[in-house]
């Protein structure tokens, strides 16, 4: 037995590095991409461009954080885009009908988690595959959107307008919106929960092997239901942020957002089969998508189809490089 101690030191370094390789690779490539932008396009180096990436993707970030929880357990949540839209729609229509902002916030923040909870229950108690349960959730939430109104509803409420238009910035005119701060707060809380609470660790355990987790006496069912609830909550917050962002609720907004979100999470190094990944990686994943989009707008010469082809191409280049770097370091 004592001979084993010689392996002790060896096991430590590689495994630590290996766990972080995907995230580090993403970070490095993101910086490269940013550098390319700076060298190619006028005004790309403005600090505000970076801030804009955050402003424009704050809601995406929050939703992606929720999705990270779900994917870490090995599940998937397709309902997020629709729940975001539904939350925005509900807020807009309640505000329109004259309810006070505080009450609207509470109501809007309750709907998402409730739906998430129900989907989680369907998944856990009735063994319905997450893809299907959340697909039904997606249909439902989208249906609710058009049910509420089939045209977009503007928001004129004072609180919303302030949240939307308040600029927090430096004297030189660079600024971020309040939504960015909220999004970053969500990120920090999520990272904290995943690392330092039992719930967070259970999420990883369930993703690693849910059968084992069950036999280890972990509350698998509760955890599973909870992650969908968390995802629902994040989608609700994302929906509120989106309503700050657009100052309206539109029934067809955020269509297909779930795919962006999943892509961001996976690019951030979280494995779809669950059990491994970090919230910080997800932040990077969202930034990657944001920077790709910024690059394309700055270019300003691509027509519709080339835009799509180039997005696909950049995504491919990014994932390929990330993968190659990952292999090299293994």
């Amino acid at each position, binding site marked *: *037995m*004592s*001979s*084993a*101690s*010689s*392996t*002790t*030191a*060896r*096991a*430590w370094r590689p*495994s*630590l590095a290996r*766990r972080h390789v995907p995230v580090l690779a993403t970070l490095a490539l993101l910086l490269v991409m940013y550098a390319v932008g700076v060298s190619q396009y006028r005004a790309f180096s403005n600090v505000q461009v970076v801030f804009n990436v955050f402003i424009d993707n704050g809601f995406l970030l929050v939703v992606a954080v929720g999705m990270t929880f779900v994917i870490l357990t090995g599940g998937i949540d397709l309902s997020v885009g629709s729940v975001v839209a539904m939350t925005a729609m509900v807020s807009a229509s309640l505000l329109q009908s004259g309810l006070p902002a505080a009450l609207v916030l509470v109501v809007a923040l309750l709907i998402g988690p409730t739906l998430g909870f129900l989907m989680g229950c369907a998944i856990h108690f009735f063994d319905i595959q997450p893809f299907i349960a959340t697909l039904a959730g997606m249909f439902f939430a989208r249906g609710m959107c058009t049910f509420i109104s089939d045209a977009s509803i503007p928001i004129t409420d004072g609180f919303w307008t302030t949240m939307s238009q308040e600029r927090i910035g430096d004297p030189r005119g660079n600024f971020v919106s309040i939504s960015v701060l909220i999004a970053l707060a969500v990120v920090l809380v999520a990272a904290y929960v995943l*690392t*330092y*609470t*039992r719930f967070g*660790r*259970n999420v*990883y*355990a369930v*993703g*690693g*092997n849910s*059968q*084992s*987790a*069950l*036999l*280890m*006496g*972990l*509350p698998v069912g509760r955890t599973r239901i909870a992650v969908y609830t968390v995802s629902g909550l994040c989608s609700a917050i994302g929906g509120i942020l989106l309503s700050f962002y657009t100052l309206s609720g539109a029934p067809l907004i955020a269509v297909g957002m779930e795919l962006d979100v999943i892509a961001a999470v996976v690019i951030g190094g979280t494995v779809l089969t669950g*059990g*491994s990944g970090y919230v910080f990686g997800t932040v990077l994943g969202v930034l990657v998508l944001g920077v790709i989009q910024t690059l394309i707008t700055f270019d300003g010469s691509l027509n519709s189809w080339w835009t799509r082809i180039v997005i696909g191409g950049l995504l491919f280049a990014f994932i390929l490089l990330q993968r190659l770097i990952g292999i090299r370091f293994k």
Partner: protein
Amino acid sequence: MTGSRPVLTMTGISKTFPGVRALHDVDFRLFAGEVHALMGENGAGKSTLIKALTGVYEIDEGTITLDGEQVAFSGPMQAAAHGVSTVYQEVNLCPNLSVAENVFIGREPRRLGVIRWGETRRRARELLARLDLDIDVTALLGTYSLAVQQMVAIARAIDVRARVLILDEPTSSLDADEAAQLFRVMRQLRDEGLGILFVTHFLDQVYGIADRITVLRNGTLVGEYRTEELPQFSLVEKMIGKELDVLERLDEQPRRVVSSRADATALVDTAELGRKGAVAPFTLRIHAGEVVGLAGLLGSGRTEVARLLFGADRADHGQIRVDGGKAPLRNPVQAIDRGIGFCSENRRAEGIVPDLSVRENMMLAMQAARGWLRPIPRRRQDELVDRYVQALSIRPANPDLPVRNLSGGNQQKVLLARWLITEPRLLILDEPTRGIDVGAKAEIQKLVVELSDGGMAVLFISAELEEVLRLSHRVAVMRDRTMVAQLTNDDTLDADRVMRTIASGTHRKEVQR
């Protein structure tokens, strides 16, 4: 302890799975301060009884009382909360978490709801030290061998403030030292008043530690006995329900045939084959009809040798010859093409395809070798499957059950059958007898002898040195991921000498060259 009331009683337990009656009216009781062995053949219902107790399965009938109070646990979590701590058969931990976490997850030390990582690691180290295991607790569990994982699972179970500790085949992947260490801890816990339910297929372990034995056969209770009142012989007879002749014959004829084929072309011949970080370069020849045993402590690199020979991992040093011709084995397909088969020690991750039926699992390797365009005719399948279900007494004998529904030992037999069907020229068996009951173990040993008589070469890896010695013509000894010796199995070789070779690193070089 006899006078006291049992801490745990199970009465009239029945449990039926679709098509299988796993338990029928079984009674069981466990006293505080005893080690109680639960014995039975593969598929007798041991694991099922344990899972019925801890609420993994809902029982059809029967009652369970814990400390005189009737209970019906909803699952392991609730059972653990009531002081029933369990290590289930097959390692059930999370490979993606660190060792420390696996030990403590669900009851991490916390302050104000915040996990104290430093404390968690410290306590994990302490606990593992109790089992004499000194490993990096921050490394991911998945990077360690099955044996280490098994120890971690045990560490996890013994930390709980439990009244009842259940260990379902905890020693199957441990070597003798490891097991001895575990027994020391078990005795200590027993003396502290814990009731311990212990499942194993090693008879000497039972007699070494158990105070009482309950025997199951085919899902029914045979009886409960005090260990000292039940001779080993009648225990086995009670388990298998018939006279044990096979077993004895084997015991009487230890095979120690000297291999005299060193001059002929070897079937497989490695020259300084190695892989960085896995095994140091080694040179090994295996001839047709020869059984080569691999001995070594846990983690000494036996599995790695096997994987290199099968092309499961790619060697980055040296070369390999098959039939005298150079044969780079870069993947399993190439190895199989050359007549090599490999039965992995990790049957759940690398062996069975749980959703597929017994039949499909058995036919897999042969089908893969034939290619998908040439399906094996149903008649031929039936023939082969029936033959091996019989030969290995796989139970239940219904080849259309999903293999996941079989007991652990029977799954192992299915895997063995998978390779036997392909009629390989070299069969690599990594712990083939792990978790297999006495009867079946004897069958497998007999099989190995027959196969090698029929000209098949076998590389035999087992944690049980006696077994290795009994079957092998030659024994290669591993230490620290290096092949330190190759000993011919003549009259002078015994367990003691092998152990000494493992222990002393001095003449490693001479032996190898």
